[in-house]
């Protein structure tokens, strides 16, 4: 049975808290920018930017990053169109906060860091995630974690967002069900 981990209210509350933490940790918004990882991370980055604008009045630039070219699992990837990376600002000297929906092995974040480093030299890079589900395979940690959820490896965490036409929700899908969905050719990553 699929279990709901967060409902829409809880997602909103969590993102509000992360927004405040980002401002507090960085002592304001000077030089701050957000980079969402395609696709889920981009929507969350935009929501966080909106919340920061509401409390601080500052416009935080938001970029979207496709990490296909930097993945270490490209040998087993599925053929699919490479989404556009859109970074409407220079990362040089900036405080870059990477935003992703689910934090799992850490490999996507490693890829994202490499991609950002190829664009310039940020002053610092931080990581914000909505859900940390554990099972890290690399020495990477989140600076801002919405919710820590213990999971088993075969389970799947799904983040559904309004921007993609769903009601906001975070679901825990059991292993069997996740496998069934894969059989029905559902595209998806490591999450």
């Amino acid at each position, binding site marked *: 049975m699929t279990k709901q981990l967060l409902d829409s209210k809880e997602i909103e509350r969590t993102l509000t808290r992360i927004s405040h933490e980002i401002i507090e940790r960085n002592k304001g918004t000077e030089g701050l920018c957000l980079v969402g990882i395609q696709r889920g991370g981009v929507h969350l980055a935009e929501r966080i930017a909106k919340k920061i604008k509401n409390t601080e009045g500052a416009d935080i630039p938001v970029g979207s990053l*496709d990490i*296909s*070219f*930097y993945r270490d699992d*490209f040998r087993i*990837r*599925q*053929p699919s*169109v*490479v*989404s*556009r*990376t859109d970074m409407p600002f220079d990362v040089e000297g900036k405080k870059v906060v990477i935003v992703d929906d689910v934090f799992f092995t850490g490999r996507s974040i490693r890829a994202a860091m*490499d*991609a950002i480093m*190829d*664009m*310039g030299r940020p002053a610092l890079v931080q990581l914000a995630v909505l859900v940390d589900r554990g099972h890290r395979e690399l020495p990477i940690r989140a600076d801002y974690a919405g919710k820590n959820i213990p999971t088993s490896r075969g389970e799947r965490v799904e983040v559904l967002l309004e921007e993609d036409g769903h009601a906001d929700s975070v679901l825990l899908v059991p292993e069997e069900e996740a496998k069934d969905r894969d059989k029905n050719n559902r595209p998806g990553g490591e999450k």
Partner: protein
Amino acid sequence: MAGASGRHLLGIKELSAQDIMLYLNSAGSFKDILKRDIKKVPALRGRTVVNLFLEPSTRTRTSFELAAKRLSTDVINFSAPSSSILKGESLLDTALTVEALGADIIIIRHSSSGTPHMLSRHLKAHLINAGDGTNEHPTQALLDAFTIKEKKGGFEGLKVAIVGDIIHSRVAKSNVYCLKKLGADIRLVGPATLLPEEFRELGVSTTSSMDEGLDGADVIMMLRLQLERQGKGFFPTTAEYFRQWGLSKRRLEAAKPDAIVMHPGPMNRGIEIASAVADGDNSVILEQVTNGLAVRMAVMYHLDERKEQ
């Protein structure tokens, strides 16, 4: 077998519209890399690409070489005058040797039509046809389609005139297959001696009148007049050719004001195209060169996804 699910890019003829769109939709992301300070991604790190060019070519070979390097592969150039082909080795033996050296992707250009298809039956490496005789030049058609998509947004109902030496042109052939599959309306224009009848079966129109062919065109694709054809009775002189089928400023007026002018290069200025047009506002000729890199990166990247069957 040779679709997007296929392991090779032998020709556009074998691709579906969906296969073509996969390459075109990804190419933009590769073009973005070329605009960056660090123009390289590790996507194909550790892969080996061999340029097996058995017909002279600098532009296409250089484009493939740079595209491969931008994806972090190692590239080896193997060209006719320096190769063992001269020492009597058969083409297949050369290709098998190249594969035994560890080539993951082999890019082949050959003066005989069908060479890549023949090699594909014997090789495990991914093959990319970089021009085979008068048959096809698929990556040229893909880069042309990508350029059109960038400039015009889409293909449905777009009026495309392809002008010049159609019969000897693998560029024209690949472009007809490609643009037809994407829904464009194609006219072939040139001297009757250089207009193949067989293309009518593909649903394209043909005319020997430049003004008729260019009337209301959104895209004008000029082909290089292969000067080695001169004196073989296909057309009187190059001066006469330019008067009849060359693209001058005046001729261009028959097309839509925002028509784009394309040329695969190398150009013969003053023979098939006037300098004022080649360097004019409608020309996208240099952008085609940049887009060639992006499209060839996309092709290598996506072929690498296909597993051995």
